[in-house]
């Protein structure tokens, strides 16, 4: 009964939504003077950042990114708060059987490569696709590989939270320095350099590197908390 009700409601909702969406001419710009033209010209012209998405994420709408990093930070905090079991330490990691030597050796060899790839992705965030979030996630998957293949692999909780806090403080204080320096929060106070150079874009690469470290540490902590959740 409830199913039929929900299904019919959903059908009405879907048809209405689709009908409204069909009024959008797919593949054509619908509005006349939106904000995107400004972003597309100002990013290479003023900020000297090749990847416009990066310049939107970090500079034009950098405040969103600050919020987003906070959301991840909160998710980690919330997860460890919800699963917190008291004064004793974390439980055992859930394993069916230990990994073979081939997997162990292989992941040991691959681990530095994955970390390097992650660092590459977030260092080149302003030039190529990718950036802090993607690089951070890649680093976290590297740690995930190690955690899955080595049963007794430990990630130091202290180091993780120190990295996380320092990266967050870097982001927020770059914003505050901008406030002192140029009058607005997150002001781009460094020289912007030349388009498509590694050292271009002023503070944008610095912020993205901080975001990369922060996201990597947070996601690693999140996976670590979840993996050790066996009572």
């Amino acid at each position: 009964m409830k199913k039929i009700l929900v299904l019919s409601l959903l059908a009405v909702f879907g048809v209405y939504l689709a009908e409204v969406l069909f009024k959008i001419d797919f593949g054509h710009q619908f509005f006349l003077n939106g904000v995107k033209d400004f972003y597309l010209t100002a990013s290479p012209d003023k900020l000297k950042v090749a990847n416009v998405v990066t310049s939107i994420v970090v500079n034009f709408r950098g405040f969103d990114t600050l919020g987003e990093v906070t959301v991840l930070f909160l998710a980690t905090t919330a997860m460890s708060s919800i699963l917190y079991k008291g004064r004793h330490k974390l439980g055992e990691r859930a394993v069916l059987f230990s990994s073979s030597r081939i997997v162990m050796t292989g992941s040991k060899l691959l681990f530095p490569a994955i970390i390097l790839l992650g660092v590459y992705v977030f260092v080149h965030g302003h030039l190529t696709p990718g950036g802090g979030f993607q690089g951070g996630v890649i680093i976290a998957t590297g740690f995930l590989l190690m955690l899955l293949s080595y049963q007794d692999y430990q990630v130091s909780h202290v180091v993780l939270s120190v990295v996380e806090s320092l990266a967050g403080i870097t982001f927020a204080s770059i914003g505050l320095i901008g406030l002192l320096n140029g009058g607005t929060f997150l002001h781009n106070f460094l020289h912007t350099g030349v388009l498509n150079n590694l050292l271009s874009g002023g503070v944008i690469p610095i912020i993205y590197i901080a975001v990369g470290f922060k996201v990597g540490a947070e996601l690693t902590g999140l996976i670590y908390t979840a993996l050790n959740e066996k009572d």
Partner: protein
Amino acid sequence: MTGAAVYSVVQRDLLYAVIGTGVISLILSILFLFLQAPDVALTEAAIGVALTTIIFIITIRNTVRYEEDSNRHSKPASK
């Protein structure tokens, strides 16, 4: 993609359903690439395919695997 979505909703084995959501994310990231959004495709591939699936699998590991199992009351404590 719609097929994968239906599959992961209908499937009673939760592990398979989670793999279904991973497939959704994979197809989604390919679609993002077609729609000229490489940044988003990269993020979706990393977060949607790898991390979300892993977190779901860890949860299933800590709870039950089959949807039918959830009706059984006699299941002993997981300790």
